[in-house]
């Protein structure tokens, strides 16, 4: 069983494993990053470190308006990326052994797989893939 | 006035060599001694500005001679001459008041540098 933070985006439920999370922070001041575009929306001062803020809804293909006032700081293993998410729900235990491959229509959207929870389908985020995508987008 | 030097060493070869170095540098070697005992008497008689003192010598060692010279003349300018590997003797000599030391084999520049430093001559 893996502790997972779940949040909803439009009609869908997404999960992020707690192991990948360093901290959840409340409304940090967002600073301007010259030439930032796309999913990179700015930077925050996190205990003196300058960290990039990535807009997860945009990355997942839902550039809608709903955003949670809290942001998720990933662990250094995942570059301490700061993720803007939508509607954080709660932390649940997810049985990863029942993880199903991601549905066809989520190809290339950083989804590791789908797990079932109380008759809900939770799309588990693929943090490695998020980093890959950022590398591809900004790294030329 | 030229610096007046006394060279103390039991080996004639070493005495000549040091004498040569000093004379070429324009110093005056006023007297030589082949052991510590002789050196003591001659020091009182000549009152040289500088003494180079071998450590291991018959009759009276360089260190004993040094100690006695310093006892009578605390400002005496004595430079010890030692061979490699006599560190503890050199240490004793420096503690007893030797102003500096030269380790054999030495070069003329080396000797003169040490002498200039302790006599304060440029």
């Amino acid at each position, binding site marked *: 069983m893996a502790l997972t933070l779940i949040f909803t985006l439009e009609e869908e439920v997404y999960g992020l494993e707690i192991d990948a999370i360093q901290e959840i922070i409340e409304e940090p*001041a967002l600073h301007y*990053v010259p*030439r930032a575009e796309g999913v*990179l929306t700015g930077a925050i*001062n996190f205990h003196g470190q300058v960290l*990039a803020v990535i807009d997860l809804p945009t990355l997942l293909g839902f550039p809608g308006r709903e955003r949670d006032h809290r942001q998720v700081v990933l662990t250094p293993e995942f570059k301490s990326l700061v993720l803007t998410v939508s509607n954080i729900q709660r932390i649940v235990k997810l049985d990863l052994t029942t993880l199903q491959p991601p549905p066809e229509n989520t190809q290339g959207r950083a989804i590791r797989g789908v797990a079932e929870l109380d008759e809900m389908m939770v799309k588990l985020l693929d943090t490695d893939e998020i980093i890959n995508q950022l*590398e591809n987008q900004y790294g030329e | 006035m030229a610096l007046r030097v006394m060279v103390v060493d039991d080996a004639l070869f070493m005495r000549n060599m040091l004498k040569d170095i000093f004379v070429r540098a324009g110093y005056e070697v006023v007297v030589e001694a082949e052991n510590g005992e002789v050196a003591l008497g001659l020091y009182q008689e000549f009152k040289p500005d500088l003494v180079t003192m071998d450590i291991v010598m018959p009759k009276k060692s360089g260190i004993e001679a040094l100690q006695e010279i310093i006892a009578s003349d605390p400002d005496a300018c004595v430079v010890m001459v030692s061979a490699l590997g006599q*560190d503890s003797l050199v*240490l004793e000599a420096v503690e007893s008041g030797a102003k500096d030391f030269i380790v054999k084999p030495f070069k003329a520049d080396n000797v003169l540098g040490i002498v200039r430093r302790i006599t304060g001559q440029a």
Partner: protein
Amino acid sequence: MDMSQYRELFLSETREHINNLNQLVVTLEQEPDNREIIDALFREAHSIKGMAATMGFDRMAQLSHHLEDMLDGFRTTGEVPSPSVDYLLAGIDLLDGLLDDLQSNQPERAIDSFMICASKEELTPIAGILQDTPEEVQTIVAIEEAPEEFQTTVAIEEAPEEFQATVAIEEEVTPLTKAAPESDAFQVLVELAENTPAAAARGILILRELEKSGELMSSNPDMTALRSGTPCHQIQAWLRTSLTKIHIEEALLRISGVAKVRFIDDRRKDENSIRDEGDRTVRVRTGLLDQFVNLTGELITNRYMLNTATSARDWDKLTQTLSQTSRLIDDLHHHVLQARLMPLENITGRLPRIIRDLSRKSDKKVALRLIGAGVGIDRAILEELTDPLVHLVRNAVDHGIEKEGTVTVSARREKDLVLIEVADDGKGMNPEHLRQKAVDRGLMTAPQAVSLCDRDALMLVCQPGFSTAETVTETSGRGVGMDVVKEAVSSLGGTLEIISAPGQGARFQMRLPLSIAIIKILLVSCAGHPLAIPITRVQRTLDLSTSEIHYSGQKRVFHLGEEVVSLYSLTETLGLPEVAAGETTWVVLTEVHGRRVGLQVDHFLGQREAFVKRLGFPLNLLPGLSGATVEGNGHVVFIIDPQPLLEDRQLFSND
């Protein structure tokens, strides 16, 4: 025992030993019967062997063991036959290669062919019976070298101590009486020459000399330790004196056996530090660490004082404590930076060898002079500087010097900068020829070329694809690499200048910041966003009135003396909304590819020192961002590098 913690130290120390080997061999070539050099070479190889065996790097241990044996043979004969010099150098190169492998976590490269070639030549009488079949030879070599044997005997018997010795942190003393920072108390470090006889006695003489100069507060080793015969290689002492440091240094240097005198506690506030460098190792004197602890302690005290003063609303006390705090922070800053400074000699060590090889290859007689190799510079900068320096030295030999001459590498401090110059006394450079070449290569039109002043014409060699070498030599064509040098210097926040005239040699001057962690910045704003530009990137600032700005086609330009300078809007470059132009246009004059350009900003917010924060992923991938700094209010301000920014937007073209 887990050896991985010593890995970095091993890598850096071995690199030093290899540098020493290179230098020694070059000297040896001039004095083939100099026993001291042979001995020193032997010791270097021996050290590498011990460390490599301890770390379990078998091939490096085997190779250095082999070189050590060979050198030991020369010690017996007292002479090194000249063919062996090349062989030694090849061996050192191979060691260097092995170290590269280890550094990049690759398996050690093969050394068999080198060892076989060794056995075939003068080194072993057994050579005569060797066949060319590698397998056979390998067996014999293996027996000869008996790796198991030295693994056990060498590695265990001698290597650990030696390695320990390198790991041991230099002891240092803290003052018994605490010196007020403003007083004339400072720490002096006296280093003895290697193998100084009767070192303890020498130490006593040094302490006596110090006692004559002032009040000797404490020392390590102290008089008692020296009297008991404690051997010493260096003496650290706290001294309070009214004499100048120069005076004291002179007096100490006159003592026979004193190799070097350094003053540690210089309260200058100019050196700086830190950049991207993973987990590197630096050796830090424990004394410096003690000072950190002391300063931290004082800062903690200060914090309580601030708390008290705040709750008591005692403004005088508050002001006073704040100024104390800022003094402590200055101090701390200074000491942190000290820990990162390394002398330039860390990278000049390779130069004698390079000069030697180049002289041979090009059949020229070239002498090398090194001046100021002791100048300290931040290690991160130093590492980036290695290749540019080698490039410049190569160019000097290949293109500057004709038949015979001297290459001088010198370094000196210029305020916040270090000036490193590579000069040759060769044929010099002709600006006229360079202008012509630039036109021939289609880099510019003839009128453009004519309009270049001589200084700018010389800088043409730094343009990519510019080469004036009539015949390209094996090592470099003129200009090959110069663009790389320029880029490297720029990326470190430095500048490159060339001074030359026909028949007058050439001087390539690199001016580099002492450190890159704390830099001076110019704060500007664009569309309400503050941005920082490193001062080293700013030639000057201008305020132009609307009438001074002209149009050349689509482009805006202005006149700066004789020169016509293009003007770009930073706001537009960043894709920010333009603010309606006022009467005055604020312009930062900077340089892109050796050409001056003006960068229009909305406002100047002032200059200040900034601690550069490294950028995390993916910010580090964005072109034109070289770091960020956090303002007093917690705001993040990004530091921009105009060149890549303009390049990326393709606003700048080589028309």
